[in-house]
């Protein structure tokens, strides 16, 4: 294709494009907000997948609750179920709230107030998650030993090597997860700064 021919096709394309104007006020302003929402899309996908796994695990504990024959095991079972259901759902709710902030129709002050509140809640839940996951890990071991093997798993000496390894892994994973949240919220904050009037 020579340049003259390219020019002809381009002119024809331009004519077609002009005929088909599609954007309206709502679509255009929505586009400016999409970028903010997309910041949280990836983490929402991970959290949703995590929530499904947590709820299935809670179902497993609930299904085997009759095997937990002492008050101690039953207390562990209740803690596990509550932890596996309440925390992930609260995180999803917090993410939904932070994504729902209306950057366009709110005033800048309202946006900042709403965002700070939603961000603090999200980060608070993450901190709760990090600390309680260490307790949850021990509870999981107790419950797994009881439900699967019907014995006190801590009587086995080898289990302690596993415990130390997992605790180190958990420590790094928690730090990485929390930092990821700090990064996402920080970057969303920069986007909000951009819409400052």
């Amino acid at each position: 294709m020579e340049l003259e021919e390219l020019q002809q096709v381009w002119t024809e394309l331009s004519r077609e494009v002009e005929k088909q104007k599609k954007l309206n006020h709502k679509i255009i302003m929505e586009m400016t907000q999409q970028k903010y929402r997309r910041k949280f899309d990836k983490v929402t996908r991970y959290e949703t997948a995590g929530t499904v796994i947590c709820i299935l695990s809670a179902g497993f504990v609930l299904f085997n609750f009759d095997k937990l024959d002492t008050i101690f095991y039953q207390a562990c079972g209740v803690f596990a179920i509550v932890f596996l259901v309440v925390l992930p759902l609260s995180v999803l709710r917090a993410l939904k709230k932070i994504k729902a902030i209306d950057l366009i129709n709110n005033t800048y002050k309202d946006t900042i107030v709403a965002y700070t509140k939603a961000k603090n809640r999200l980060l608070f839940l993450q901190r709760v998650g990090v600390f309680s996951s260490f307790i949850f890990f021990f509870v999981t071991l107790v419950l797994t030993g009881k439900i699967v093997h019907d014995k006190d798993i801590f009587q086995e000496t080898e289990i302690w090597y596993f415990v130390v390894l997992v605790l180190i892994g958990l420590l790094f994973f928690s730090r990485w997860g929390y930092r990821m949240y700090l990064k996402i919220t920080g970057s969303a904050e920069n986007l909000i700064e951009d819409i400052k009037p």
Partner: protein
Amino acid sequence: MTKEEAFVAIIQEHEGIIYKITTVYTNSVSEQQDLYQDIVYQLWRAYDSFRGESKVSTWMYRVALNTAFSRIRKEKRQPRSVALDHLKIRQAEPYDKQFEERLRAMYEQIDQLNSLDKGLILLLLEGKKYEEIGEITGLTKSNVGTRISRIKERLRNKMTKKA
């Protein structure tokens, strides 16, 4: 007229610019929609600093091309085969077959070029003078002229090889 209304009016008037740039710099519907949103967002960000010293279209081309360049740099996207799917997203009715073929051929030619040359040919096809192309891309008028001559040469050579 509020800032928001004025911005929307500008985008509505010149939406063709964004559309054409996104078709040249992407290969799929989702990529195109992402770039489209990115450009509108960057225009909104830059709107406050637009003082009206240049034409609105010049400002829009500059912001839109810079957004496309920075996206390419981030993604290190390699040229791939041209799919026509994303060229159809705004069509109410399908183009006729012959025009579709010519359109595909045109995008195939443009897709052979590097990102800066793509921008230059796009601006040239939009009927911009070398001086305005320079204003948009930050190149000097003579540099624009030299690069465009090379692009023309390359297109001609491709034609000869094909023939």
